[in-house]
Structures are given as C-alpha cells and as structure tokens.
C-alpha cells in the first residue's frame, strides 16, 4: 500500500471530535470558509508528515497509542506485524518514542511517533502484548530515557545497574567524569 493510501485509511480511525463540531458549525455558517477552517483543524487525532523521511510518519497522542498500534497490527489491510525498531528520542522539551513498523504481508512501512511533555514521569502504554520484541526494546528505552511503560511485564534496567542515577541518553544528562564533550 502506498503511503497516501495508508494515510487515508488510518486517519479515518481516529476522527477528531473537535473537527466534527467545527464542521457542523461551518455548515450552519457560510460554506466558503470551510476550506480555511479545515486547514487549521486536523480532521483526525493523528498528525501525518512525510517530510524528510522515506516513511509515512504518524504522530499519535499517548492515550490513543495502544489502540492505534493494535489496529495497525490486526487490520488486514495494514497488518503491520513486524516491529523492527523502537527508538526513544529526547526532543528537548518533549520525550517520545518512535516505532518503525513493517508488514510482512504487504511489505509497507509506517513510523509511529508518540510524545509527551512530562519529563519527570513520562509514561506510555506498553506494546509488549502486540509485539514481544518490544519487551527488550522498551526496557532499553526505560534504561536510557526513563520512560515508563504501563503493563510492561518486567520493567527494569537492562544495560545499566539498578542503582544508576539518571538517564544517560537524555540531552540534559550530565556526567562530568565519564563524558567527554567536544
């Protein structure tokens, strides 16, 4: 499936309730302004970008993450059943995770991103129940970014010792002894 077809399909799953209210109100008002308002309000709760990446990027809100992932996996048209990369990213103000998915049936890819502004106690839903490989990858992210995962069976430090202080791959991590900044 092409990226465009995927985008159309997936965007229908999570309609933006605000958009419907707005569009209804638009109907009552003049129809000319409709297009303008549509641009400002996303019809879906998901945000799509394809800029600067060969994959289709989907940005999802944390509360919809697990539902979206589940649908992406079980839907026969998407059937993205192979999670090949799970990356934790520190975007400065936000912490987030990037999921790279591939379909072993259709051989198309999608990238799902999720972000949170909560840097003290970032929490997302675990996708361990969908892809068992996520168990290790999520532990790695927990280890280096301090992102918690709900419903993870065994969430503890994977690489570092349990008593390690801080999360090294965060941008604000400081270790004056061991880190050499160029």
């Amino acid at each position: 499936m092409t990226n465009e077809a995927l985008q159309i399909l997936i965007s229908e799953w999570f309609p933006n309730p605000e958009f419907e209210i707005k569009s209804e109100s638009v109907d009552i008002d003049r129809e000319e302004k409709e297009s303008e308002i549509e641009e400002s309000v996303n019809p879906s709760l998901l945000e799509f970008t394809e800029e600067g990446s060969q994959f289709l990027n989907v940005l999802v809100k944390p509360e919809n993450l697990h539902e979206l992932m589940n649908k992406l996996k079980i839907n026969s048209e998407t059937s993205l059943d192979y999670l090949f990369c799970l990356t934790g990213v520190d975007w400065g103000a936000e912490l987030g995770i990037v999921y790279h998915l591939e379909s072993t049936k259709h051989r198309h890819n999608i990238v799902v991103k999720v972000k949170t502004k909560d840097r003290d106690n970032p929490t997302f839903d675990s996708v361990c129940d969908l892809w068992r490989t996520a168990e290790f990858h999520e532990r790695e992210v927990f280890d280096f970014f301090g992102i918690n995962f709900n419903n993870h069976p065994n969430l503890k430090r994977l690489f570092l010792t349990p008593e390690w202080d801080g999360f090294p791959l965060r941008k604000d991590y400081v270790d004056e002894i061991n880190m050499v900044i160029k």
Partner: protein
Amino acid sequence: MQETATLNNSFKSEEYFINMGPQHPATHGVLRLLLTIDGEIIKKVEPDLGYIHRSIEKMCERDSYQQIVHLTDRMDYLSSHINNEAVCLTVENALELEIPDRVKVIRTIIGELTRIASHCLWWGVMGMDVGALTTYFYGFRDREMINDIFEETCGARLTMNYNVPGGLMWDIHPNFIKRVKEFIVHFKTKIPEYDKLLTGNVIFQKRTKGVGVLSKEDAISFGVSGPVARGSGYSCDVRKYHPYSALDKVTFNEVLETDGDTFARYNVRIKELWESLSIIEQLIDNIPEGEHRVKTNAVIKLPKGEFYQKVETARGELGVYIISTGTKNPYRMKFRSPGFSNLSALNHMAVGGKIGDLVATMATLDLVIPDIDR
C-alpha cells in the same frame, strides 16, 4: 500418612538459579544469563546485558559523520564492513550523493566476503559449542584467507573502516581480484568438508534437530531477522527486499528453511555461504572502472529530517536511524542491532530444553555481544 508426605517432599525437585556468564565459554563474550533450572531442564532464561555497553549512540551525538563510521566497527565486529556501509549509505542517501558504480560493486564484494568470514567463524564456534573442537580451526583457516584479503586492501583485519561517506578510503589493492578468485576456488572445496564433518554427523543432527524451535509467528513477533528468521520460514532478506549498493544487479536465492529449529538455522547459514560465493563470482570480474570516492565537504551537514537505512549483516537486519537537525552532528542516532532482537527470543526458544540445548540454540543465534550492548 505424614511420613509418606515428607518422603515425597524430600524427593521433590527444586528449581535453582545458575549464573551462566559473564565469563562462560558458551556465551561468546560478556553475556550473562540467569538460568532457572530444574535438574537439567531450563525453566527460564533471563539475559543480563550491559557488560560492555559503551553507549555508542550517545557518542555519535557528539561526533561528526565521518567519525561515526569507525565507531560502528566496534558494534558487530564480525561484520564491520557492513556496519560501516550502513552508516555511509544513510549519510549518502540523506545528502543525495551519486555514488559511482565501482564503489557499489566493491562494497558489495567486501560485504559478502565479510558475511562469509563471519559465517566461517560462526561455523567453527558452533562446532565448538556442541563439542567438536576441531571445527574451530577449520573455520578459522578459511576466515584467515579473507582476513588477509582485507588486510591487504583495507589495512586492518577486523575493524576495517574502509568506507567513508562518499565512497571508499582507498581503491582496491592490485592483488585484490586475484586473491578473491583464489579464495573462491579454495573455499568451494571446503564447504563440502564442513558438511561431511559436522552437518552430516549423526550426533550433531541429534543435538540440533527439533531443538530451540521458533515458529514463524513467534519469529515475527520477536522481531528476529537474518538467518534466525529465515530458519523459521520468515522471508526477510534485506538484500532482496531493499537492495542496496550493487545487490540489485546480482541474482541470488534467499535461503529459507521452514523447521525453525537449530538445524534449520544452521542450514541457512551453510547455504548462505554458497549464495555469497555466487554473488562474489558474479561481481568480481565486472568491477567497473571509475572513481573510488566522491568528494564531499570536509564538514558534512545532513539536511533536517529523519533517515533510516537497513542493511543485512551476517546476523540480520541492521537499521541505522538518524534524526538530523541540520547540524554537523546527528541529533539522535539509533542502531537497530540484529543481535538484540534475536536475543529477546532466546528465553522462548530455550525453555523446556536441557543445558546442552541452550548452548546449541545460542550458538545458532550467533550472538556478538558488542552488537547487543552497543
């Protein structure tokens, strides 16, 4: 009644923990496995990682793109050339550089030689893990020939750093083609020996058949890749699905086995030796003339965006994920290492088997610990 109860209790088997590693001959490095065992039967395997974690991903965030390449040598050191190639391809794709055909062909040849070298070592170690110590030396003998080729052309045997963004550090050595052809002739007589010595051996077959079974569904769910996944019947060869360098110009078969057991994974690797040889044979006589390197800026700045490149290392699918903000360093660099995902399936594969089965299973996972720890 009570007496029989206590008697039964005294014969009740009890589970116990055992530490396999970080110094253990079968873990090939500093992997530590926490085993829960009932007698000889394995109940649970919990890997404990991080004994040689160097945080290469963090180091990449402060290095320039040329410098990153040499760090990847130290990840999966048995397929260092392919790791380098992955980073270079990512950078080149991001810069939209046109790479000369000569570079592509040479990269592919050396990549396949790397794969053969890695599989040779794996074969030797596989034999050693199941108890046949002699295979180790036979595997090393053939690997040594490839290492000599690498040393002559790249200057190093293991951590070659022959790739640079934009091409190759040097052109190939004048002896390169001759030596590779010699190796092909030599190695074609040696693979049948491998088969006679180990593959056909009845003890080896008993040790490996039906051991450490991973079904296709589980393989996909665990995100395994490379020979491990292909042994389970999941077709995932990156060289087929996303051909890079000169791999779109050659014909080769993707080796697939359906049993998903240790012997299937073993067979995939042995057959891959033949496929790699055939790829090299197709390319070695047709190295196009041309530049070995495209001039790049001294300071490489990637455009803003996200770049993902996957390649097939000897162990599976290596992903290089660069998030760039347009500066000379990557904002975030992630290596999706094949060994890490493959290791996550170990518990599933080993439970219910004996200690010997665990060792055989681990041998066919072909773990390289620096690749897992990064």
